């Protein structure tokens, strides 16, 4: 027996059917012959052509989503040329309004919205470039096959933002909590959403149904589903830089400065502040003496000085001063609690002209240095009327113990002494005893990424020991160990076979799997036990040569204010055998975590010999300028179009269970439909998507052309030839006009996949130009007008309705593109979920076309949402069209409509003068494109006279004729 799918209509090769030979003389193009033949079969007659006013209104809403202006009406109605209609079609297709209108349809199909959905429902402020891309694609009449390929692999085709398609759906930022590999289930759900949408959008098939088992109706084995997940495996929800169109050219321009940067980097490399096995402490002066702030500003030594390669940032906002007249040679001991050991002692102070010019620094009563506090540490003079930080002064190498007294004393009894931080740089080796410009110091630990660099070394294990944290239990959301050499790879990732463990404490081994799951946020974090120390270690799949470690408490941008559970003291060790460990980095040479807010970045180089200071400073300055040049050339704004990375292997999951891995699956497409697509397992991820896009649009893939031709028909007539536009499979509906659909689809391909060509064919057909008037015979036999004995009239969609109200009120703002306007006040401050409160007052940007609203998922507009606006929780290949009393409330009573009624009233007064009859006439012309009938004029004038012009306008917004497309 032949399986039913082998005979299924949509899987057959696409061939252009013969146009039926219809005896009756009716029609303008082949479409009409197909429609006429079907009507004849059903015993139905087509309707006569609609009047011109109706055609203009229909075309305007259909192509532009806006009502015709009275001036456009006059022009068209008085145009006696035989091709007036065709020219109208051309004018509307050429208008930028066309792309805005038809992009909205596509955005429904692909479930596009600008927030994550689920409970957090975070906004995606950088998702709009995809919306603009779609609008541009329609306006430019981009060939549909190219449009498809770009949305799957735009990053390879020069349109990065097009891959916003892939990640346009919802994304559960919070994730579920199923240990041990909760992220696997979460990721599987994301891929299900992505693969399902790609399948429904381009193939018109419910591919997602094959996630757990072979598809019940269509020829999609479970393995095909997983081949498709392998195609998208490297795409994750998130933003990536949007590359400009002349990216290659800019890259070429950046080559020269980049070469020079590389040269400079080679000179500077020996001075990189990489981890050193020694303590470096910065001890602030204790709370004695007067606190005095540094002068505001960012210049050298001012309070906001961020430092540079040869100059430390101003570490404190203020210094302490001992008032004058404390007596000559009286010891002042600002620092206490010094550590024991051998240290290079670095002094610093507040610089001011009024300070003591001779200050003795003593250690246990012995003078170790004399400094001039009217100058910086390097001897430069104070700046008049300012207090600045001196920088560090090398007071030599000394041995301290815990009872050591480090003190200052003046010679002049009237002089002011100023003390600031003292730096203690441990001296462990002779090499370190050579003088340097500044002490070696690494940046303080921060909540986001902390980096540890070291010379390349072979290792199979890494161990991270938490010695202390700012609140009990240090969190680490991810610990990455990067391979040495070009194209570094995180060898600690679970996907590459690495295993994380932490010791069992209180019968619990913690949640170490979080530490290498590739997820960055506070919920997917390992935590050390409350009683530190505790550690987590990762065993790599094999011995790796590594030279860099990255770790963070919370690397996600979603919760930027987290500041607790931060590991402040730690040790990182590597091992080749899991027995003998070598420390590669620790917190001991980092600036203390108390500085993490003030000095999150520490640009200063280590070990610079004073003799080379000028040279290094010059090179560093040159490098900064070059970097700015390169950045200006190649810096790109971020766009929510998916983060891309090379994925690990893909497996078939038994019954869709992410823990039940079966055989490995190579990327691919549907095995039984369309051309064959055999791809190697290891294919780089971008090439997988490129190949899939080419497979989709290959000449022998019969589905995409049929699917898109049907969608276009669907939006022109309100219902598709197949009325399940995203399911042309065995479980979908059958086409009412199968030959017509195939004819359209093959014309579509033959005409270069140009959507405007298909529009032209359809719009110039007699079928489209029919009257929409009901007829008893037609209603009786085919009430839903599937066989097109008339043009099917219908209520306009939410977006057209809002745009139309704004247009007739004269307030519509036609500025195109860019970030959307927001119809809510969102509030995330009180809780960790997003709440949306509808705006009550509208102005400015709010009057742009609705396609430009920043559309949150699962949150409908307060006024127009009730008009069957999809909430983008799921794909919406068709919209329901319901009629409810809530719609009446919204159009009668909402502040938005009232405001627009006022706007329209003002416009009428402006354009028609004070005379009521003229105002009524103008209102009808604007709203319905016609003059009022006498009874209407009387009734309207009565309302105007008794209740005012704005109330008349509000009434007209509610009229059936206004909201129906004839």
């Amino acid at each position, binding site marked *: 027996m032949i399986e039913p799918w082998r005979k299924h209509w949509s899987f057959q090769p696409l061939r252009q059917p013969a146009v039926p030979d219809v005896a009756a003389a009716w029609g303008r193009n082949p479409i009409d012959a197909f429609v006429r033949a079907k009507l004849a079969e059903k015993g139905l007659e087509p309707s006569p052509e609609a009047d011109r006013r109706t055609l203009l209104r229909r075309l305007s809403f259909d192509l532009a989503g806006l009502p015709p202006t009275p001036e456009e009406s006059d022009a068209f109605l008085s145009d006696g040329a035989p091709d007036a209609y065709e020219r109208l079609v051309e004018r509307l297709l050429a208008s930028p309004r066309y792309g805005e209108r038809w992009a909205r349809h596509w955005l429904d199909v692909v479930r596009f919205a600008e927030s994550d*959905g*689920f*409970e957090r429902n975070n906004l995606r402020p950088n998702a709009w470039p995809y919306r603009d891309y779609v609008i541009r694609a329609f306006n430019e009449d981009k060939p549909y096959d190219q449009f498809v390929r770009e949305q799957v692999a735009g990053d390879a085709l020069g349109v990065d933002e097009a891959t916003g398609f892939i990640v346009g759906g919802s994304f*559960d930022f919070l994730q*579920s909590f199923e240990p041990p590999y909760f992220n696997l289930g979460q990721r599987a759900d994301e891929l299900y959403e992505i693969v399902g949408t790609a399948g*429904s959008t381009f193939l018109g098939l419910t591919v997602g*149904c094959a996630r757990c088992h072979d598809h019940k109706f269509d020829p999609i084995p479970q393995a095909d589903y997983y081949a498709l997940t392998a195609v998208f495996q490297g795409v994750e929800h998130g933003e990536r830089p949007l590359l400009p169109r002349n990216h290659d050219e800019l890259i070429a321009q950046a080559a020269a400065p980049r070469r020079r940067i590389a040269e400079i980097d080679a000179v500077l490399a020996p001075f990189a502040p990489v981890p050193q096995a020694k303590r470096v402490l910065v001890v602030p002066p204790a709370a004695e003496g007067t606190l005095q702030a540094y002068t505001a500003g960012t210049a050298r030594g001012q309070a906001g000085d961020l430092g540079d390669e040869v100059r430390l940032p101003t570490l404190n906002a203020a210094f302490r001063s001992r008032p004058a007249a404390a007596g000559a040679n009286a010891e002042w001991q600002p620092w206490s609690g010094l550590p024991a050991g051998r240290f290079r002692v670095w002094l610093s102070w507040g610089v001011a002209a009024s300070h003591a010019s001779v200050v003795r620094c003593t250690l246990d009563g012995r003078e170790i240095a004399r400094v001039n506090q009217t100058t910086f540490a390097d001897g430069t003079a104070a700046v008049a009327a300012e207090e600045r930080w001196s920088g560090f002064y090398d007071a030599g190498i000394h041995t301290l113990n815990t009872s050591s007294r480090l003190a200052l004393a003046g010679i002049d009894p009237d002089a002011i002494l100023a003390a600031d931080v003292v730096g203690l740089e441990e001296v462990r080796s002779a090499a370190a005893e050579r003088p340097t410009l500044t002490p070696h110091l690494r940046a303080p630990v921060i909540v986001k990424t902390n980096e540890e660099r070291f010379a390349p070394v072979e290792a199979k294990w890494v161990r991270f020991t938490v010695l202390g944290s700012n609140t009990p239990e240090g969190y680490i959301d991810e610990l990455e160990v990067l391979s040495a050499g070009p194209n570094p790879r995180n060898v600690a990732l679970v996907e590459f076979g690495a295993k994380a463990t932490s010791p069992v404490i209180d*019968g*619990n081994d913690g*949640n170490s799997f979080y530490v290498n799951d590739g997820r960055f946020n506070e*919920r997917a974090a390992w*935590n050390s036990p*409350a009683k530190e120390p505790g550690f987590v270690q990762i065993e790599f799949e094999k011995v790796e040569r590594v030279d860099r470690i990255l770790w963070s408490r919370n690397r996600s941008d979603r919760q930027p204010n987290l500041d607790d559970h931060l590991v402040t003291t730690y040790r990182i060790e590597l091992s080749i055998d899991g027995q003998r460990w070598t420390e590669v980095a620790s917190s001991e040479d980092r600036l203390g975590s108390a500085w993490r807010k003030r000095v999150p970045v520490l640009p200063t180089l280590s070990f610079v010999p004073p003799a080379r200071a000028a040279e290094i400073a010059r090179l560093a300055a040159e490098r900064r300028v070059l970097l700015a040049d390169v950045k200006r050339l190649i810096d790109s704004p971020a766009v929510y179009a998916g983060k891309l990375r090379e994925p690990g292997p893909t497996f078939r999951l038994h019954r869709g269970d992410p823990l039940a891995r079966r055989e490995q699956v190579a990327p691919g497409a549907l095995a039984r439909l369309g051309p064959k697509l055999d791809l190697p397992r290891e294919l780089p991820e971008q090439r997988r998507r490129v190949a899939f896009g080419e497979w989709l649009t290959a000449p022998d893939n019969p589905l995409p052309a049929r699917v898109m031709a049907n969608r276009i028909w669907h939006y022109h007539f309100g219902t598709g030839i197949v009325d*399940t536009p995203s*399911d042309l499979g065995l*479980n*979908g*509906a*059958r086409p009412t006009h199968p030959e017509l659909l195939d004819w359209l689809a093959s014309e579509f391909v033959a005409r270069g996949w140009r959507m405007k060509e298909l529009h032209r064919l359809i719009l110039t057909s007699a079928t489209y130009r029919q009257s929409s008037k*009901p007829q*008893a015979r037609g*209603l*009786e*036999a*085919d*009430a*839903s*007008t*599937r066989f097109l004995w008339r043009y*099917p*009239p219908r*209520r306009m969609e939410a977006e057209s309705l809002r745009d139309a109200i704004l247009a007739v009120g004269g307030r519509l703002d036609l500025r195109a593109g860019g970030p959307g306007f927001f119809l809510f006040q969102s509030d995330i401050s*009180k*809780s*960790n979920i997003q709440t949306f409160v509808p705006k009550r007052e509208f102005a400015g940007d709010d009057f742009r076309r609705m396609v430009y609203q920043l559309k949150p998922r*699962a949150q409908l507009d*307060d006024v127009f949402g009730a*008009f*069957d606006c999809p909430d983008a929780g*799921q*794909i919406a*290949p068709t919209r*329901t*069209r*319901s*009629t*409810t009393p809530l719609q*009446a*409330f919204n159009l009668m*009573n909402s502040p938005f409509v009232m405001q627009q009624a006022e706007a329209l009233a003002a416009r009428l007064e402006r354009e028609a003068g004070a005379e009521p009859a003229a105002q009524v006439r103008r209102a009808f012309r604007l709203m319905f494109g016609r003059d009022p009938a006498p*009874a*209407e004029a009387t*009734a309207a004038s*009565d*309302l105007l006279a008794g209740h005012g012009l704005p109330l*008349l306008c509000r*009434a*007209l917004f509610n*009229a*059936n004729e206004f909201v129906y497309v004839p």
Partner: protein
Amino acid sequence: MNAPLLSHAGRHLLSRRDFLRWGGTGLGGIALAALLAEQRLSAAGAPWRPLIDGRLPYAPRPPHFTPKAKRVLMIFCSGAISHIDTFDYKPELIRLHNQPMPGAESLITGQGMQGNVIKPLWDFKPRGQSGKMVSDLLPHLAELADDMCFIHSMTAKSAAHGPAENQMSTGFILDGFPGIGAWATYALGSECRNLPAFVAIPDPRGVPQTGSRHWASGFLPAAYQGVAFNADKPIPHLNRPTGVTAGDDHATYELLKVLNDRHLAENPGDTDLAARISAYELAAKMQLAAAEVGNFSKESPSTLAAYGVADTNPTKAGFARNCLLARRLLERDVRFVQLFNGAYAMGEGIGNWDGHKYIVEQYKTHAPILDQPAAALLRDLKERGLLADTLVAFVTEFGRMPTFQKGANGRDHNEKGFTVWLAGAGVKPAFSYGATDDLGYKAVDKITTIYDLHATILHLLGLDHERLTYYNSGIERRLTDVHGHVIKGILA
């Protein structure tokens, strides 16, 4: 002959596939669908879609079989109310108090590691004739234990609030699916001619975690979305704008009638247009009826006092007013009322039942808000005879752990076993069904799913959950996905 009555929109609600497959001509399809609807039966398991007149989307429609319940009240405790501190009595927890949970060495829940077992935080006492053990946390509701039918073996698919709230209200953990109230009104319409068929009453403190997803219509027509309002926040845009009088509106409707009648005369038989005219008529009626239903001036002082509408705690008084509003809606035959207790506007555990950190303090705040008003509502429904044909379902998204979280004084999420209870039409009173283990950790006896609960609620409404479907994007969708069994053991 029904066909000409059907508007384009109404007809859209019929399956085009069946229409084509069976009919060949439109006529045949419609006739067959109408016939099936009349017979209320078709081949077992075959999809059954209500026959909807587009002009009257809320008109009452016959169920699949004789129902026990005409309407449903769902009380939804957002944030996950702890079953082991309320209705699921576990003496073993007292014995093991402050000891590690047996077999929980490697147990990690959403917020991390578990500490020791903690006994119920309120004492349990036998209640009513049945002697059902209920805690002192909710003393007023406890008095009504004899009216309740407990399901102690409920399980959810997710232990995260968002997905689990979605599941309890829509059957799916994902966004975008219709709520159970939307399904019920899609199937049955409403006996009430001047109020929405499905009303969601958000807590005075705000909306639950997944907000309007509870009452969204998803892919069902927008007509079936729940209308969200409460005693203090009316239906959006229900009231006339400032400065517009009843006389203004009357005149406006007069003009609209002139315009719409003329337009309809030019398009005779177009039921879409007729549907819109009737929607405006319904809106006008609803404006009055909604004002009336929210006006408590005719309620007796004893009723007002029983609910606690004038309580000094403004949140409790607000919830009490919501409870009274619920009764008044049910009394007027609104089909489905979803009453929320708890909101997320203020954050985790502050305005809801999510007691992670200081559960005792948190529940001492929340319990009085729920207890007296909800008990008064249940008692009031009973005294007025409404409970005979109203089903009450008291639900929450999941339960809580028998342990405290490590380093905290609260219980983490637990989707493996929790309690919901039903009362009223068609269910056994003073009955307990299924059980969790000795610690209340995991359902072990007669394990029940949310699908089962939904199947049972639909069953009591006279609907077969396997046949109530809506075609969307290639799939014949059901509230219960491909799962669910009616919980026969609890049916009266």
